[in-house]
């Protein structure tokens, strides 16, 4: 089973107890496209990513993952997912190298020291920190490690939840660049962010959530001004 070509989200509803986080969202994510998922705090963005990442179960509705024309599920889907969230998903007691080796083991990808070094070079984690426990890292270093972790498994569905927080300007630009590379390599990229500047000009698809509902969806590249304009018109 190879890369995912398409993710179809249909009538997705999620309730947490009495609260409704998502109310019937329809969305289609395609390979080689970067989707920006925008909306105010509490709009349901993280919840949507959670369901797409299979860690949250929808109350109603379906998410279909398609690989080479056929629907896939379970471990085959998880194998293809790369996740970058608020938290680093890395063990604080283990070093960067050990964290990546563990991930490589679980995903059964190349976890040789050379491959790990190459990946850490790619995200720009400074060499002298690589064998220290991750708990000693700064926020930005941790975020770079998290990115390395996500990229190591060569995911074809990359889910990013506010990936720019904690990165300096250079880090944010570099991350934007990496996402562009992934997208051009044919991955499905979904970015949740409030940092419109960082994604301006890079997205192929903009979706805005408001109180759990999709209120705006448009394909095409958006400049910073355009993003700001649609955000203010639809998110409120």
């Amino acid at each position, binding site marked *: 089973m190879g890369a995912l070509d398409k993710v179809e989200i249909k009538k997705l509803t999620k309730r*947490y*107890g*009495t*609260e*409704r986080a998502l*109310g019937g969202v329809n969305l289609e994510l395609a390979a080689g496209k970067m989707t920006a998922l925008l909306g105010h705090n509490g709009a349901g963005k993280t919840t949507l990513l959670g369901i797409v990442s299979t860690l949250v*179960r929808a*109350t109603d509705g379906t998410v279909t993952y398609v690989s080479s024309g056929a629907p896939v599920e379970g471990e085959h889907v998880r194998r293809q997912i790369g996740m970058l969230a608020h938290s680093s998903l890395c063990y604080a007691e283990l070093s960067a190298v050990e964290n990546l080796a563990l991930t490589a083991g679980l995903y059964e990808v190349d976890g040789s020291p050379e491959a790990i070094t190459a990946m850490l070079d790619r995200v720009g984690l400074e060499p002298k920190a690589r064998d220290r426990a991750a708990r000693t890292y700064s926020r930005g270093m941790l975020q770079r490690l998290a990115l390395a972790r996500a990229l190591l498994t060569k995911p074809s569905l990359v889910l990013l939840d506010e990936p720019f927080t904690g990165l300096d300007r250079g880090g944010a630009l570099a991350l934007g660049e990496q996402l562009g590379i992934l997208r051009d390599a044919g991955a499905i990229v979904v970015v949740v962010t409030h940092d419109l500047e960082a994604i301006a000009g890079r997205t192929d698809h903009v979706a805005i959530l408001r*109180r759990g*509902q999709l209120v705006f969806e448009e394909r095409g590249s958006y400049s910073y001004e355009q993003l700001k304009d649609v955000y203010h018109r639809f998110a409120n």
Partner: protein
Amino acid sequence: MSNKGIPVLAALAAIGFVVTIYLVFTYAPLVEDPVLMFNQKIFYYHVAHAFMLFLATAVCGVCSLVFLKTRKPKYDDLALASAEVAAMFGAVVLATGMIWAKAAWDIWWVWEKRLTMSLLLWLVLVGYVLVRRFAGSSADRLAAGLAAFGTVGIPFIYFMVDASDHHPKAGAGGVAATLPPEMKLVFWLSVLTFLLWCVALVMSRVQSARAERELREIRERGLDAGLFT
């Protein structure tokens, strides 16, 4: 389950209750035990409630497992309703058990087998209610897990209480099979009455949970249409 069934069941239970109470005091013979005598009458209520405690807990356990596997809210409603009703019946079992113990042995609590089992099961149910209340948005899953594990644990509790020699054993209260026929009739009538009552309670609790959900959905539709902003 329909709305209309509940009043009918409740009415039947009420009639059953009046009839049983009448029969308990006029028709069922007094036991010959000089200590128990009149006190034995509580048996008709104590044991009937214990039956309902185990029945409702089993329903809760099964529904919880089904809910975990399907995540259909209707099973969760039923599990919650039966757990609450079971907890209530359990409290009555323990209270009447204590009254029985006071009358028969002049102490408030004895580690009689069935009473001990009821207590352990009741602890699971109290845990269930606490989890429902304090576990936030994970409450339904957690409570379902607790109910499933608790129900699967019933046979272990049974064999444990049976084999454990930690507590001095008090004599068991009457067993249905050895009762004289008049007592047996009244006893089963009482069981039937409380079964009806139990089902009526569970159904109305399910109804209220469902009504709550419907109200919420209507409100959501209003919100979507921009009514309240």
